[in-house]
C-alpha cells in the first residue's frame, strides 16, 4: 500500500507556521532571551571566528554559549538583517518542534493518526508557547526539537544495528549539542535512556506472545545482547557532546562560574510565590495537569516503564523549591545554577505523545466508546468540550501573558541612542543603559560602543558584578541593596570603567545620578535622558582581551555549521521521500509493536475524575483567596494599609474612597493635594513594608500609628504617620490629615539667573576638537583636608572651593598610603560633595573608601535593602598618609542655588530649621550637608540628610535632623602636601590665586553645639531638580 501523506501532520505544520509565525512578530522581541541571542548573532555576523566580544562586561568570550543558533541567525542576517534571521530561525524551530513531536509520538505509539494528533496538539502546547513567546529561548527549542528527531534514529540503531542509523544519530546529536549544551546532557538521561529501555523492551517482547512474559531476567539478557551497541552509541555521543563544543568546555574550566547565584523564579516555592507558580508550573502544564493520572498510568505500563520513571523525575524537578526533593536530587550547587523551568518543559513535551494518544482515543477510540456507553454522548461531548476549551484557553493565556504582565519596558526606539553614540566620538567611552530591560541587548547589537553592563550573566567578569546576585545593573532597582549598591559603585568611580554616558529610561535612578555628580545632557527624541559625567578619560585604543588558540576559534566557527551540513546531506533523501512520497519507502515500523487500544481501565478514569475535581477545588479556592486579599477589610488597620497601597500605586480615586466623607473634602480637592506632592518619597520611592499599631481606641474612634518603610535610590525611608479613624455605619474611614494652608506671597515671580552654554567644538568638523575650543579647566582650591578614622573605617574630609570665574564640575579622588608609602586604597567622593560649584562656591566633601561589597562569596548578604550600606576596604596596613586628586571641568548645568535655610537652631542635639525655596523651580529632592567641626574649627565629619518631600517655588518645609550623639572621629593626618588640582599642586594654586584667604568668613556659618565630641556644625543645602526648565 502506498503511504499517504499524513493530513494531521500537514495540518499541524500549517497551523503551527501560521499561528506562531504571525504571533512571534508581536511577542518575540519583548521576550527575556530573544534579543540576547540576537546580540550574539550580531557578534558572529561581524566576527565569525573571533570569540572575544568587547561590547559587554568590559569584554567577554562568546564561547560561553553554544553558537549554532546565533551563527544561523548571523548567516540569515546577510539576507534580510538580524531580525529577519531571528524570525526565520524561530519558524524553523517551530517546524522542527512539530515534526519532532510527530516522530517522537510515532516512535512511542507506532500509529500515524496518534502521532498526527500529537503534532496538532503540540502546536498549541502552552509550555512550547511560553518557551518561545514569553522566554524566547530559541537555542533551547531548537535543541530539544533536534533531540526529538534523534530518538527514532537511536531506536533503529539499537534495534537493527545498521551503521546508517548510528551515523544519523550522531549527526543529529552534534547539531543538538552545538545549539544548546544543557539539552543533550539532560536529554541523555531523560530522553535517550528511556528510548534505550523502550527498544530493549520491544526486542524482548518480540520473543514472546504477551508483554507479561517479559521478565527482568529476559530484559537483562536483551540488555547484554545489545550492550555493545549501547556502549558504542554512548561513548560516541559523549565524545560528540565534548568534542563539538570543546572550546565551551575549555572556557568553562578556565572561567568556572564562581558567581553568586542569581535568584530565579523557577527555584521558588510555588505555593509561597504565586507568580512563579503561575509562570513556571501552571502555564507550562496547562490542561495537561488534568490528565496527569492518565499520563502516569500509561507511562508506567511495562513498555513505557522507563519513560514513566523519567517523566516522574522531570515532573518533580520542575516543581522547583516547592518541596525539598529537587534540591536533594540535584545537589545545592546544580540547583542554584540551573533554571528548573526546563524540566517542566521537557516533562510537558514528554506528555505530548500521550496527550495525542488520549485525544485520539477520546475522539475516536475506546475511551469515546467507554464514555458514551457509560454516561451517554452528552457527557462525552461536554467533557471533550471542557478539555478543548481549557486547552485553547491556556494557549491563548500563555501567548498573551506578556501582554497582561509585561516583563519588559515598552519598546524603545534605539535609533536616537545609536545616533547619539555615533556623534562626536561618543562611542570612545562606555555607556550604561538604565531601565531598558532585555532591550539593552538590541541596543548593544546596533552600536560599537561598549558598556560595563551586559545581559548574559554567566559571562560577567567584573567582581563588582559577579559577587552580587544581579543580572544587570540596568534593572538594579529590582535587586535592592545588591543592585543599587553595585550601581552606586559604578556611578561613583566611572573613570575606572571609562563610563561617561548613562541612558536613563527610568526616572527612579535620577536622584542617585545627580548626587553622584552626573548631569543631564539632553533628552533624546525617544524620551531617553542622557546623563553625562565630566572628566572621564576615553577608552584606550587597544583593549585587553583573553586570547584563544586558533584551533579553538576555528572549531567554534566551523563545527556547528559543518554538523548542520552533514545532517542535511544525510537526511536529504529521507526528507525528500518523507515529504513528497514519490514511492514507498522501506519502513522499519512494522517491527515496532502496535498497541491496540481496546478498553481502558475504569480505575484510571475514576482517578482522573477525582484528580480533575481536586484541581477544580484548588482553582476555586485560589480564586477565593485572591478575592479576599484584594478586598479592603473594614478594620482600621486594613483601611490604612489599603490607603497607602493605593497611594503607592497612584490609585488616587481608590485612596479617596477611604477618607471620612464627613470632613467634606471633595474628590477634586484631594486629587489636587495629592498631585502637588512630589519628591523622594512620592516620586522616587517604593513602599516596602508597613506596620500598623493602634495607639488609642474607643468603639468608634481609633488613633493609629503607621510605620512605613520605603526604598529609594538614595536611602531607606522610615516614615511614621499618625492617623485618626472613625467608624461610620460599621465601616472604618480615615480622617483626612490637615494640609498646610500656607500660601506663597507672590503670584508671579520674576527671577534673573546666569546660565551657561559650552559649544564644545565650534567648527562643524569631524576632526579632533581644536586647541582653541578647549576650555581651561577651572581653578579650584582644596581649602582644608584631613584623613580621619571614623568608627573603624577611614575617610578624607575637607572643604573645596571653586576660585575660578566659571562654574566647575568637581570629581575628587582620594588615595590612602601606609607609612611605607604603599598604596592601600583609592576611591572617589560619592554624594557627600556638591559636585557642581558656581564661581567662589564652597562645599564640604568626604571620600570614603568602599571595597567591593561581599567580595567574599561566603559572606552573608543582608536580605534587607539598605542603600547606605557601606563596605570598608580591607587594608593590609593602617593608612598614614593620603593624597587627593581633584579634577575640575567647566560645568554648565545643575547649578541650582535656590534654597534658603532659615531658623537653624540646635537643641538637645536636634537640628531644626526651615528650608525655603525662593527660586522658580520645584526643589524635588533637597539634600542637607551637615559638617561637624572640632573646637579648633577643623572639619571632622560630614553627613548627608535627604529631605523626603519636594519643596515648591516660594514654599517652605520645616525639618528636624538628629545630630550624631557621639562622633567617633580621630584625625590621623592633616598634611595637605599631596593634593593636586588638575594635576597642579594645590598649595601653589592657593598661593597664586588667593594668597590671603580670609578664614573668618567660613566661621560665620558655624552653629555652636554643646557636645563633647564636636563643637560646631554647619549646614549647606543642595538639591536635585526633577524637571528643570
Amino acid at each position, binding site marked *: 500500500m502506498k503511504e499517504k501523506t499524513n493530513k494531521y501532520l500537514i495540518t499541524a505544520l500549517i497551523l503551527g507556521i501560521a499561528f506562531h509565525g504571525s504571533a512571534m512578530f508581536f511577542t518575540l522581541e519583548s521576550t527575556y532571551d530573544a534579543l540576547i541571542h540576537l546580540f550574539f548573532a550580531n557578534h558572529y555576523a561581524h566576527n565569525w571566528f573571533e570569540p572575544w566580544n568587547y561590547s559587554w562586561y568590559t569584554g567577554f568570550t562568546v564561547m560561553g554559549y553554544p553558537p549554532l543558533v546565533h551563527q544561523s541567525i548571523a548567516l540569515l542576517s546577510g539576507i534580510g538583517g538580524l531580525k529577519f534571521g531571528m524570525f526565520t530561525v524561530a519558524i524553523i524551530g517551530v517546524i522542527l518542534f512539530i515534526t519532532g513531536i510527530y516522530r517522537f509520538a510515532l516512535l512511542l505509539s507506532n500509529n500515524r493518526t496518534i502521532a498526527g494528533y500529537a503534532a496538532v496538539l503540540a502546536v498549541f502546547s502552552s509550555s512550547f508557547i511560553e518557551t518561545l513567546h514569553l522566554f524566547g529561548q530559541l537555542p533551547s527549542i531548537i535543541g530539544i526539537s533536534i533531540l526529538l528527531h534523534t530518538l527514532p534514529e537511536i531506536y533503529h540503531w539499537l534495534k537493527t544495528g545498521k551503521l546508517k542509523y548510528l551515523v544519523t544519530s550522531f549527526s543529529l546529536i552534534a547539531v543538538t549539542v552545538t545549539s544548546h549544551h544543557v539539552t543533550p546532557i539532560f536529554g541523555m538521561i531523560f530522553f535517550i535512556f528511556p528510548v534505550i529501555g523502550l527498544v530493549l523492551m520491544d526486542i524482548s517482547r518480540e520473543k514472546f506472545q504477551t508483554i507479561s512474559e517479559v521478565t527482568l531476567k529476559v530484559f537483562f539478557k536483551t540488555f547484554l545482547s545489545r550492550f555493545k551497541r549501547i556502549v558504542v552509541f554512548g561513548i560516541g555521543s559523549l565524545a560528540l557532546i565534548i568534542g563539538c563544543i570543546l572550546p565551551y568546555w575549555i572556557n568553562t574550566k578556565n572561567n568556572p562560574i564562581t558567581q553568586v547565584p542569581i535568584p530565579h523564579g523557577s527555584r521558588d516555592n510555588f505555593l509561597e510565590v504565586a507568580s512563579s507558580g503561575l509562570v513556571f508550573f501552571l502555564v507550562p502544564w496547562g490542561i495537561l495537569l488534568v490528565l496527569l493520572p492518565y499520563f502516569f498510568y500509561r507511562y508506567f505500563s511495562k513498555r513505557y516503564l522507563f519513560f514513566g520513571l523519567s517523566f516522574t523525575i522531570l515532573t518533580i524537578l520542575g516543581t522547583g523549591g516547592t518541596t525539598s526533593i529537587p534540591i536533594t536530587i540535584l545537589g545545592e550547587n546544580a540547583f542554584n545554577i540551573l533554571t528548573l523551568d526546563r524540566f517542566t518543559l521537557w516533562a510537558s513535551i514528554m506528555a505530548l505523545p500521550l496527550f495525542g494518544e488520549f485525544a485520539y482515543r477520546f475522539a475516536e477510540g475506546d475511551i469515546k466508546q467507554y464514555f458514551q456507553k457509560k454516561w451517554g454522548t452528552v457527557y462525552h461531548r461536554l467533557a471533550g468540550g471542557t478539555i478543548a476549551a481549557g486547552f485553547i484557553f491556556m494557549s491563548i493565556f500563555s501567548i498573551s501573558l506578556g501582554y497582561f504582565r509585561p516583563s519588559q519596558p515598552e519598546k524603545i526606539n534605539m535609533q536616537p541612542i545609536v545616533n547619539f553614540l555615533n556623534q562626536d566620538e561618543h562611542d570612545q567611552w562606555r555607556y550604561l543603559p538604565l531601565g531598558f530591560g532585555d532591550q539593552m541587548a538590541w541596543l548593544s547589537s546596533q552600536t560599537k560602543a561598549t558598556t560595563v553592563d551586559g545581559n548574559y550573566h554567566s559571562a560577567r567578569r567584573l567582581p563588582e558584578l559577579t559577587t552580587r546576585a544581579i543580572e544587570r545593573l540596568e534593572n538594579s532597582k529590582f535587586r535592592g541593596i545588591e543592585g543599587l549598591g553595585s550601581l552606586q559603585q559604578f556611578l561613583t568611580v566611572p573613570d575606572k570603567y571609562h563610563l561617561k554616558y548613562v541612558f536613563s529610561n527610568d526616572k527612579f535612578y535620577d536622584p542617585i545620578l545627580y548626587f553622584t555628580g552626573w548631569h543631564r545632557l539632553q533628552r533624546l527624541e525617544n524620551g531617553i535622558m542622557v546623563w553625562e559625567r565630566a572628566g572621564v578619560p576615553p577608552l584606550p585604543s587597544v583593549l585587553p582581551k583573553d586570547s584563544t588558540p586558533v584551533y579553538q576559534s576555528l572549531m567554534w566557527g566551523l563545527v556547528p555549521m559543518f554538523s548542520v551540513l552533514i545532517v542535511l546531506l544525510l537526511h536529504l533523501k529521507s526528507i525528500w521521500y518523507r515529504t513528497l512520497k514519490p514511492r514507498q519507502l522501506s519502513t522499519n515500523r512494522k517491527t515496532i509493536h502496535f498497541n491496540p487500544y481496546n478498553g481502558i481501565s475504569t480505575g484510571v478514569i475514576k482517578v482522573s475524575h477525582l484528580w480533575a475535581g481536586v484541581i477544580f477545588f484548588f482553582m476555586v479556592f485560589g480564586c477565593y483567596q485572591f478575592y479576599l486579599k484584594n478586598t479592603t477589610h473594614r478594620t482600621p488597620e486594613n483601611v490604612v494599609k489599603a490607603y497607602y497601597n493605593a497611594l503607592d500605586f497612584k490609585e488616587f480615586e481608590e485612596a479617596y474612597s477611604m477618607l471620612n466623607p464627613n470632613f467634606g473634602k471633595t474628590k477634586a480637592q484631594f486629587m489636587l493635594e495629592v498631585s502637588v506632592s512630589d519628591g523622594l518619597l512620592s516620586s522616587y520611592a517604593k513602599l516596602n513594608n508597613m506596620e500598623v499599631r493602634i495607639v488609642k481606641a474607643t468603639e468608634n474612634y481609633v488613633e493609629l500609628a503607621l510605620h512605613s518603610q520605603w526604598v529609594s535610590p538614595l536611602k531607606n525611608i522610615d516614615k511614621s504617620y499618625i492617623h*485618626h479613624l472613625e467608624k461610620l455605619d460599621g465601616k472604618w474611614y480615615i480622617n483626612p490629615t490637615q494640609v498646610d494652608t500656607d500660601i506663597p506671597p*507672590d503670584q508671579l515671580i520674576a527671577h534673573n539667573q546666569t546660565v551657561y552654554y559650552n559649544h564644545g567644538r565650534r567648527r562643524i568638523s569631524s576632526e579632533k576638537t581644536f586647541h582653541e575650543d578647549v576650555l581651561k579647566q577651572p581653578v579650584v582650591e582644596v581649602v582644608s583636608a584631613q584623613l580621619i578614622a571614623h568608627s573603624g573605617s577611614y575617610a578624607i574630609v575637607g572643604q573645596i*572651593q571653586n576660585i575660578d570665574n566659571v562654574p566647575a564640575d568637581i570629581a575628587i579622588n582620594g588615595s590612602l598610603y601606609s607609612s611605607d608609602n604603599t598604596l592601600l586604597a583609592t576611591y572617589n567622593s560619592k554624594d557627600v560633595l556638591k559636585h557642581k560649584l558656581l564661581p567662589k562656591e564652597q562645599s564640604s566633601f568626604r571620600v570614603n573608601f568602599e571595597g567591593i561589597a561581599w567580595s567574599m562569596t561566603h559572606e552573608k548578604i543582608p536580605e534587607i535593602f539598605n542603600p547606605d550600606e557601606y563596605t570598608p576596604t580591607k587594608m593590609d596596613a593602617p593608612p598614614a598618609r593620603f593624597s587627593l586628586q581633584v579634577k575640575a571641568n567647566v560645568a554648565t548645568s545643575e547649578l541650582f542655588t535656590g534654597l534658603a535655610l*532659615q531658623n537653624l537652631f540646635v537643641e538637645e542635639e536636634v537640628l531644626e530649621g526651615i528650608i525655603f525655596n525662593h527660586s522658580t523651580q520645584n526643589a524635588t529632592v533637597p539634600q542637607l550637608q551637615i559638617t561637624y567641626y572640632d573646637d579648633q574649627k577643623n572639619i571632622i565629619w560630614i553627613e548627608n540628610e535627604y529631605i523626603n518631600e519636594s519643596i515648591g517655588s516660594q514654599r517652605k518645609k520645616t525639618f528636624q535632623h538628629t545630630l550624631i550623639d557621639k562622633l567617633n572621629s580621630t584625625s590621623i593626618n592633616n598634611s595637605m602636601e599631596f593634593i593636586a588640582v588638575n594635576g597642579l599642586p594645590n598649595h601653589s594654586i592657593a598661593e597664586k590665586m588667593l594668597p590671603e584667604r580670609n578664614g573668618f*568668613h567660613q566661621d560665620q556659618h558655624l552653629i555652636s553645639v554643646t557636645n563633647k565630641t564636636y563643637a560646631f556644625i554647619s549646614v549647606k543645602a543642595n538639591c536635585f531638580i526633577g524637571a528643570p526648565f
Partner: protein
Amino acid sequence: MRRKKLHIAFSLGLMLVFALLSFTLWSETSTNIQGTTLKRLTLKVAKSYVASDVITLNSSSGISITHKDSVSLYISSSYGSSVILPEFEKDKLTFTISSEITRKSGVIYWRLLSTAGVPIDNGSFHITPSAKLAPILESYLGPPSIVAGGSDYSMMVIVGTDIYDNLLPNDTPVELNLYGNNSKSSIQKTTSDRIFWERIFSPETAGRMLISGSVAYASTNEKTLEINPNNAIDFNISEKLVHPYADGNQIATFQTSIIKDGFNNIVSDGTLVKFMVTTSKNEKLEVSGATIQGVAKGQFLHPNEPVVWNAQAFVIGMAKSSVKKVSFQSVVEELNVDFSNDNRRIRVGPIQSYMGQIIPDGAKVELQIEGYDKPLMSTSRNGIVTFELMPALYENGMVDLTISTMGSIETFQKILN
C-alpha cells in the same frame, strides 16, 4: 691505500692556501692604485643652500675617470640617507641633489665614496628655510583665560614656517599685535630657538583681549584671551522689605552693592555670594545668590515672630559686606480664643495682622497641652485655626493649655469634660 688518500688531501689543502693568499694580495694592490688617483678628487660645496633648491655639486677637474660608477656621493640628512651617482662632464663629475631632499632645512652630511666604499672626501652643508612663508603662522595661546591685575599671564607661542614647513630661522622679527580695552598695541621681538614666545601679563581691566602675530606677510589667526575679574573686595548690602513685620509670609530680599575686584572690575556673572544672618535669638539663616552685573540677591521668608536680624554677605575667603541690622515687629497684638462648652473644641482667631487685616493663610498655631508630649500644630485658614480634643485621646479633667502664634503666647486652664 690509506696513505695515498692522505697525500692527496694535503696537496689540495696547500693549493687552497696559496690561492687565498694571492687573491688578497691582488685586491689590496688594485685599491691602492685607484685610491691614489681618486684622492685628488674634491667637491665644491657652498656653506648653505635654500630649501627646495636643486643642488648641483661639481668635483674638482683634471681627473680622468674611466668608470662612470666608480665614484658615488652618499648624503645623509634628517630625511634619511641616499646615494647619488655622478654625471660626467669633460673631466669633472657633477652630483645633483633633487629638491625633494633639499626641502627640509637642516644639515646635510655628504661623503664621497669610491665604489669599493673607500672614503675620498666628506663635509656638510646647511639648508636654510625658504623665504616663501606659509601664509598662516601656527600659534598657540594658553591658558585662554586669566585674571586681571597683572600677576596672571598667558603665553603666546608662534611657530612660523616656510611653505615647506621648515621652522623660521632664529632672529626672524615677529610682530605681536594685541587689542584690548579699545586700543591696539604691538610688541616686536625676534624668534629664538626657532620659535617665538611671549608672556602676556593681564591688564588691570577685565574684558576680552584679541591677539595675533605676524612675520612679514604671514600672520596667525585671531586668538582670544579672556581677562576675568580678580578676587572681589569688600562691598555693601542693603535690604528690601515690603513691610517690617514678622508675618512669616512676605519675602525679605538682601541685595549687594555692585561687587568689584581691586581693579574696579565688576566680578564675573555667577559669582556666588553667601548671605548669612544671625538672629537675636541666636538662630542662623543662610542663602546663596549668584551675581548678575556684580549684584547678588538673597531672599528669605519673613520671620514669624519679632526678632532682629544681623545680616552679612560674603564671597567666601575673599570679601565680606557691611553688617545690616533688620528688626521685625510683631504682627499679632492679642489672640482671640474661643472654647466650646466641653472645652474640647478650641477656635483660635480670627488672627489679625498689623493693620487689623486677617493674617494671610498659613500662620502656624501651636497648642501645647500639659502632660502631653508633642504640641498640636495647625496652620490658619482665613485667620482661623480650630483644634479638636478627642475624648479618646485626651482624658477628662483639668488641663493647662498654651497657645502660641506669631510670637504671641497665651495660657489657659480649662476642664475637659
